[in-house]
């Protein structure tokens, strides 16, 4: 196919080149002349010798091969050692032009396909020829040849290399014929005409370049183009050629950038490859560790946005990328290593104050952390048998990084920002759910990971003022924490629970209680104390701080605010508040929904805010604190507040509320939790589809929590979530029904009492009700629902427990109350699935299993059993 391309007229070829560029880099308008490499300081070169940009002794200004060097050097992690290449560059410039051309000839005679250093020398020489040739077509061909040589150097196996060389050969042939026919071809002089090279001179040079390439390889090339299996490779090579041609045409200097890009394009195909000899355990550790680093980096990046001069934050991010790069390289994950390398380079320039950390740089860095996280997820999935996929945005992001990192600080920052922001919108639209999705993935992962990891993360997040200390932090972490498998931790907690029971059985043993053996009593008491301490300790192992959750929200707020065009400041308080590990993952979802709602619906645009006399920046306050045995998380915004009228109107429209019914504020606000309820006039990307708040409520309730809303029009809203500290332990009232014992969560019980017979009555001969303080409540008989023999049938001889919400209070009849206990909650084992009316099980003090009653389920069960009689009763009353 390149034959066809090669002989296309100039214009179409260029168009093709552009099309090809556009195909490989979604930055459609990526300028072909971003920067002039001559004016571009050689940032990437770590060569101690700076003579490469000095004129040589012949007085011929050496066309700075910095461009070639820079272009190639950036990619150093791709192939061989950067040192060798830098040496080459220096070597060449030291010896001047003539040497290079002779060199090309000599080198190519002895061309060793595997010798990347030599190939690089040839490539540099070809590039120079291309730049110095006035004949455009010849320049195209020479540039293409150079790219092919580079491809040969980077090629993975012999076939690809040979193929690339064969391509180079063909292009050289082409270039020669062009040069021959162009009698007026002259050597472009960059300084003086002293070099005096003529067409024949070039001709002979090219001859010697071509000769070593065996004919057989040409055949191979042709075969490759035909073979569908190789078509892709061939196509890629062709694309590179086009890039190189475009580059050569604009040989005023911007080709190194493009060639860099094209190399990046070439590198994408193997961006994510799992090495064959991979150590799975090691890799998993790497993934877990990298996640910690990424989280830390994200936090630091967000901090940087507020304080761009915060050196410790820059270093934190830099270290994160650097560590991931190093470890990924060691693991053989060249794709990740390479990506991290570019992210690191960018940050290193931020650190060196060459680039200001703002706008696109911040966005790009954050997206880079996302990308690394996504790549890690991909690798992890591959480990679990999934396919290894390069995330969609990878290529675009990689090139954005490369370009920003290459950009001249002072001169080209503006241009870079323009193109980078363009690329942002064109190529990689911000998906409002992407960060959410990422969180989801991380969340899943979190569940697989253990407690200690979260501990690690906490430490990783804590930015330390002292830089030296920060640098030592990684080692310190390794000493301070151990990763433990979740199952082991759960098992430990189970065992300790059993130990507590066994211990209490000993303590309660009659022979001990008789007090005959006082010494034994003391020993048992001592053991009991130890067991209690042990229990506290194991329980605390389950607790993790909310900080990681808040951190993810901070990121979400940033992205959403940007997307919605609003200015939002997030203030977090009480991040160190601890909550059960199992809950931290579940509580994240509702919070995400709430934050999304607050930004989309709650907060006004800057203009609107200013119009009502508020500051342009809205404040979102996220506050966590302990209150008794609960954890409270409040989300407060100072936006427009909930529109009571609008909510009521919408609710009446949908028939949720009777038209004439008057509702209190809290009742009205409660309506937004109805499934599918939305007051948004238009569905936006962010929210408004009416899924959300009902999910929030359901999630919170599944955690045995509660959500309250307070809102004042024009002043803002506060959503308060109240959750139990842990799902593992619950305060329960042990009750007896017949021969069975059940546990009722203490929080569900409003009060318990033995009713006077006079307060009991039967309605319509079906439902029973009790009158308490002028309120009629239906009575639910547990023994009837659960079919228990021998239970108290007369409510006046049993106990009524009042449960339920203000509006729907219900009395549950049990035989007697046995006392309040702290209980370790277990799921109902085996394959029983969901048992109506029972929310779980707990191990009682005597080692038996007690069932925890699900009050809401019980009420629903009773309703289902006797129709909706209780409702009609209430209405009748």
């Amino acid at each position, binding site marked *: 196919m390149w034959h066809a391309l090669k002989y296309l007229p100039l214009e179409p070829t260029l168009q093709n080149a552009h099309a090809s560029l556009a195909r490989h880099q979604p930055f459609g308008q990526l300028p072909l002349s971003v920067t002039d490499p001559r004016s571009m300081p050689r940032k990437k070169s770590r060569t101690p010798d700076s003579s490469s940009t000095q004129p040589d002794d012949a007085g011929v200004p050496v066309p700075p091969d910095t461009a070639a060097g820079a272009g190639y050097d950036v990619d150093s992690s791709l192939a061989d050692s950067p040192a060798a290449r830098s040496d080459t560059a220096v070597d060449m410039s030291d010896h001047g032009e003539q040497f290079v051309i002779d060199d090309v000839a000599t080198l190519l005679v002895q061309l060793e396909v595997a010798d990347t250093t030599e190939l690089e020398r040839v490539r540099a020489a070809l590039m120079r020829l291309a730049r110095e040739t006035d004949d455009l077509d010849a320049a195209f061909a020479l540039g293409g040849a150079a790219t092919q040589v580079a491809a040969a150097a980077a090629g993975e196996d012999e076939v690809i290399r040979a193929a690339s060389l064969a391509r180079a050969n063909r292009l050289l042939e082409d270039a020669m014929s062009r040069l021959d026919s162009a009698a007026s071809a002259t050597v472009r002089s960059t300084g003086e005409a002293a070099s005096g090279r003529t067409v024949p001179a070039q001709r002979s040079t090219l001859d010697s370049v071509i000769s070593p390439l065996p004919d057989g390889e040409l055949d191979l090339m042709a075969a490759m183009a035909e073979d569908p299996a190789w078509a892709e490779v061939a196509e890629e090579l062709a694309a590179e050629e086009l890039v190189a041609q475009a580059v050569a045409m604009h040989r005023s200097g911007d080709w190194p950038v493009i060639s860099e890009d094209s190399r990046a394009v070439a590198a994408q195909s193997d961006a994510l490859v799992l090495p064959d000899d991979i150590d799975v355990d090691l890799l998993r550790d790497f993934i877990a560790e990298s996640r910690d680093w990424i989280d830390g980096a994200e936090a630091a990046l967000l901090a940087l946005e507020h304080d761009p001069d915060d050196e410790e934050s820059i270093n934190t991010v830099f270290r994160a990328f650097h560590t991931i790069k190093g470890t990924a390289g060691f693991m053989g994950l060249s794709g990740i290593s390479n990506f991290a390398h570019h992210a690191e380079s960018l940050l290193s320039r931020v650190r060196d104050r060459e680039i200001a950390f703002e706008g696109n740089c911040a966005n790009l860095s954050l997206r880079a952390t996302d990308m690394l996280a996504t790549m890690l997820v991909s690798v992890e999935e591959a480990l679990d048998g999934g396919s290894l996929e390069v995330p969609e945005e990878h290529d675009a992001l990689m090139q954005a990084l490369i370009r920003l990192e290459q950009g001249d600080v002072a001169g080209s920052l503006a241009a870079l920002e323009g193109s980078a922001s363009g690329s942002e919108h064109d190529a990689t639209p911000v998906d409002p759910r992407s960060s959410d999705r990422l969180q989801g993935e991380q969340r899943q992962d979190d569940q697989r990971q253990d407690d200690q990891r979260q501990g690690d993360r906490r430490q990783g997040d804590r930015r330390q003022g002292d830089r030296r200390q920060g640098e030592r932090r990684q080692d310190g972490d390794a000493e301070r924490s151990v990763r433990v498998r979740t199952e082991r931790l759960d098992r430990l907690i189970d065992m300790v629970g059993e130990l507590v029971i066994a211990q209490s059985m000993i303590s309660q043993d009659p022979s001990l209680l008789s007090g005959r053996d006082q010494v034994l009593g003391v020993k048992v008491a001592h053991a009991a104390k130890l067991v209690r301490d042990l229990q506290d300790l194991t329980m605390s192992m389950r607790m993790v701080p909310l900080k990681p959750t808040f951190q993810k929200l901070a990121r979400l707020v940033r992205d959403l605010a940007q997307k919605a065009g609003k200015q939002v400041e997030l203030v977090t308080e009480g991040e160190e508040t601890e909550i059960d590990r199992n809950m931290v993952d579940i509580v994240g979802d509702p919070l995400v929904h709430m934050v999304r709602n607050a930004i989309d619906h709650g907060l006004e645009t800057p203009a609107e805010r200013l119009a009502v006399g508020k500051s342009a920046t809205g404040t979102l306050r996220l506050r966590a604190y302990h209150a008794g045995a609960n954890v409270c998380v409040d989300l407060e915004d100072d936006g427009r507040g909930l529109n009571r009228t609008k909510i009521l109107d919408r609710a009446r429209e949908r028939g949720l509320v009777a038209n004439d019914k008057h509702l209190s504020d809290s009742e009205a606000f409660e309506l937004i939790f109805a499934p599918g309820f939305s007051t948004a006039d238009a569905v936006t990307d962010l929210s408004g589809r009416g899924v959300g708040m009902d999910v929030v409520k359901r999630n919170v309730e599944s955690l045995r929590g509660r959500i309250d809303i307070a809102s004042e029009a024009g002043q803002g809203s506060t959503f308060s979530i109240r959750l139990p500290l842990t799902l593992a332990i619950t305060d329960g009232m042990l009750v007896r029904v017949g021969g*069975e014992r059940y546990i009722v969560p203490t929080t569900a019980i409003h009060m318990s009492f033995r009713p006077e017979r006079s307060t009991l009555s039967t309605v319509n001969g079906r439902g029973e009700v009790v009158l308490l303080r002028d309120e009629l409540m239906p009575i639910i008989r547990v023994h009837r629902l659960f079919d*228990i023999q021998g239970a108290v049938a007369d409510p006046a001889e049993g106990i009524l427990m009042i449960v339920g919400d203000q509006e729907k209070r219900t009395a549950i009849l049990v035989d007697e109350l046995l006392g309040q206990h702290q209980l370790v909650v277990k799921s*109902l084992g085996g*394959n029983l699935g969901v048992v109506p009316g029972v929310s779980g099980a707990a191990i009682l003090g005597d080692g038996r299993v007690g069932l925890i009653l699900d009050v809401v389920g019980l009420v629903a069960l009773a309703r289902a059993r006797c129709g909706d009689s209780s409702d009609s009763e209430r209405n009748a009353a």
Partner: protein
Amino acid sequence: MTAPASEHTISRAGKYLSFFLDSEEYGVEILKVQEIIGMLPITRVPRVPHFVRGVINLRGKVISIVDLRAKFGMPSVDAVESCIIVVQLQGVHLGVLVDRVSEVKAIGIEEIADPPSFGTEVDTEFLLGIAKGAGRVTLLLDIDRVLTAAEVLDLKQLS
């Protein structure tokens, strides 16, 4: 019923834990058995299929107990020797309540015959086969079939 493929027969050979329900001897593949425990106080769970006796606390873990007698339609009796065989099915632990555990025996291919289509108290779909040896007949249970979650759920819906 015709003889099944030989592979099937071979896969049935192996070690079985045998136990009794009434006077009938049953066998369950030893590899499925995690442990045998004595009778523990069982907490009744309401509104579950009749053959689910309830749940017990197995060293801090709540597992449900299936009464095999009830499952097979025999009258429920708590014998002195009653014990619980804890089996692991698809990662889930389940207790099986039986009258008496007998022994672990190796059963060869030649001893195993296909279940008759009728004549036992057990639905033949639960049987891997019937082992005849030493004058005794052992019904080899396909414990997965007996206790699959799907089946429990099905029955729950029926009840």
